């Protein structure tokens, strides 16, 4: 995915992000990519999909795919608890769910905290340094769509 106008603007002026944990690391989506945060619903297995897509869930009357974030990032598997949830992201007006360990916070990011990834079209678009922690800001489309 090439750099969008939205990305350019984020780099210049900063913006809000939704950060979350997976395997003790911080990741984030831009707040504008996120439409909902919900409990993990019943997920219907769909044959023929790669491992990291757990299946489809019924989100407000629509069947949308659900990605297991740990599997997608090749992180060790874990048992999801009651703090785990699904972040619903919107990609070109198509929704998809992403299961994460735990949602952290909505944070305001200033331009000087942002470093663009040197790799064009990578899964992580920006690296954000905030006090002591490092947050990887993700491209939702790469998270859902990409085959490794």
């Amino acid at each position, binding site marked *: 995915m090439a750099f969008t106008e939205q990305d350019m603007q984020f780099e210049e002026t900063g913006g809000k992000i939704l950060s979350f944990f997976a395997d003790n690391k911080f990741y984030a989506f831009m707040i504008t990519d996120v439409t909902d945060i919900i409990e993990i619903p019943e997920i219907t297995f769909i*044959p*023929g*999909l790669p491992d990291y897509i757990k299946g*489809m869930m019924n989100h407000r009357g629509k069947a949308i*795919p659900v990605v297991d974030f740990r599997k997608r990032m090749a992180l060790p598997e874990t048992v999801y608890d009651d703090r785990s949830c699904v972040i619903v992201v919107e990609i070109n007006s198509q*929704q998809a769910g992403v299961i994460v360990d735990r949602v952290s916070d909505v944070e305001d990011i200033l331009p000087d905290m942002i470093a663009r990834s040197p790799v064009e079209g990578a899964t992580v678009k920006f690296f954000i340094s905030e006090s002591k922690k490092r947050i990887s800001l993700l491209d939702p489309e790469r998270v859902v769509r990409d*085959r490794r």
Partner: protein
Amino acid sequence: MPKFEAGMESMLDMFVFETGDLLEKLDDILMRTEQEDTIGTEDINEIFRTMHTIKGSAAMMGLQNMSTLAHAVEDLFYIIRDDPEVKYDKPGLYELLFASSDSLKGELDNINDDDIPLTDFSELEGRIHAFAAQMKGESAPAQAQGAQAQAEDISHLFPDDEDESILTYKVTYQENCAMPSARGFVLLRGLGQIAEVTSTLPEDLDADEADDEIKAHGLIIKLITDDAKKVLEFLEDGINVEKAEQLHKPEKTAAAQAPAAAAPTPEQAEKAVEQAKAEAAPAAKQAPKKAAPKHEQSLITVNLEKLDQLLDLVAEIVITQGSVTSSPDLKGISANLDRFNKSARELKKLTDELQDSVMSIRMVPVSTAFQKMNRVIRDMNQKLKKGVTLEFVGEETEVDKSIVDILNDPLMHITRNAVDHGIETPEERAAAGKTEPPTVTLSAGYDSGEVVISCRDNGAGMDRAKILAKAKKNGLLTKPESEYTDKEVYAFTIAAGFSTNETITEYSGRGVGMDVVKKNIEKVGGKLLVDSQFGVGSVFTIRIPLSLSIIDVLSVQVGKNSLSVPITAIHEAFSCKQENYIKDPDGNEFIMLREMCLPLIRLNRHFNIADAVEDIESGIMLYCSEGDASAVLFADSIIADQQIVVKPFSPLLSDFPLKEAGMSGCSILGDGTITIGLDVKEILAPYVKKADA
């Protein structure tokens, strides 16, 4: 810059649709009347009206070229209508009419493309005018309208009691403007945004004489506004506006005259009333006469999108109703539910009816697509002199509107091919001893959930050897020639880059058409088949699934998944005994059902679903067939026989071969769970009987 009047974009769809429809009808009339000696009065009136309407609406859209062309044709029929005895060259007239109709259609097609400039029809218009002049006899000189500007007395425009804040403008239109009243109407609409229009002269822009009045005296607009400059600018920018000016009240003299006119004596008033009465009487008599020939159709036009929405809604209702009446909560209630059940049945009956009637709204007879072919055949007969007759069978077959739209192009290609390649020249036919007239037959009908449209010609048929030779030349052969079956050979004719016609004609021969047709049909889940018999003729058959978004399915359990098989594909569901199960040494599994040995497809293994029933006797068998293929599907158990709305998978999953694996989409059931819709054709694909005829 768009070609049509700014602010009319919202009307564009309507204009294109209506005008297209009118031209379609015009073609029908022309086709019908071409063979007759004279054109009936009714038809003349109809053509006249059609052209008049097109002229008006094109002018409204600011499409000057279309408007003047329609005007020219209207003039022709004005002459014919006025003098039914008038002599004219009928084939010549029809040539002009068809040419005009085609030009207008072409312009409609290009209207949305700003890169294509408005076509200049003046050459055609010239021919029409010349034709009209010939009809009238050279004696009638060109009508010269003495619309010379006079020093007009404008004082009558300013009644004494008029408010000071009312400004008066005069708009003059260019002389070649076809319908200034329509232009004026558009102008007023736009003006409404920057000023309040209090009155206009002529008052009624719809009136018949409004055009002449505007041509003679200009359009007078009275309005109240804060920004007089802006109004003037706006008026000057209007299409075809030659001059726009503000008029000022003339002094004294006019003012003196005005009250005299404004206050008539009682005598005059009485006279006026009587006169009015006398005028009203014959007018009343005339009115019904005028109205009689107008057939008001009780039809309305609806945006297809709205219908889709309605259909979606109905689908949701059907499903929600199911979830209410069979709610699991009801199972826990021990009380008597008789009345509830009765109402539930009533509701189901009503929703079923609702669903049927919504579906039927979208259904149109295929004849709309077939009729267009009349024109194709006519044009080709004219050029190729093959004298082909076109016959329809089952044209009343109703199909979804979207299917008719899909059919238009393929039918056109196939019909052209049939006439151009299929039907021989009269000499060839005579030499072959064929006495029956050359005929192309279009037929329509239903077959197992599909619409079947075929185009049959009684022409030369296809020459197997010739096709093979050509295929070889074009490098299309993939196995030895002798191994090709007839069907496979004929299929070459619709493959890419194939055409047996040595010379390329205007209509066909480039070999691009058919494979595009085939691709387009396949895109919507349809099929294109060819069959032929040398010397007897060929048949092209299009099969397209009926686009019904709600389908009846049998949902089965496999492991934890619910899979839904379309009822249309299922012949029977049965439990199988061990003795009817066969496993051959290669590991293939079969089920003996009566005299048939059918391949067994275990859905759990096909889809890699875990924790499913493996034991043949404890599961359920579904004997399915689709097209030429049959097999038995094996599932754990039957969940329900229900109706679902299959929605395609999210585009985000387009990278994965879900469709190829045999899943057409998924559907959310009344209880919120998700079932997967199966595409039996894909699942059975490996078991298609090798076609050898």
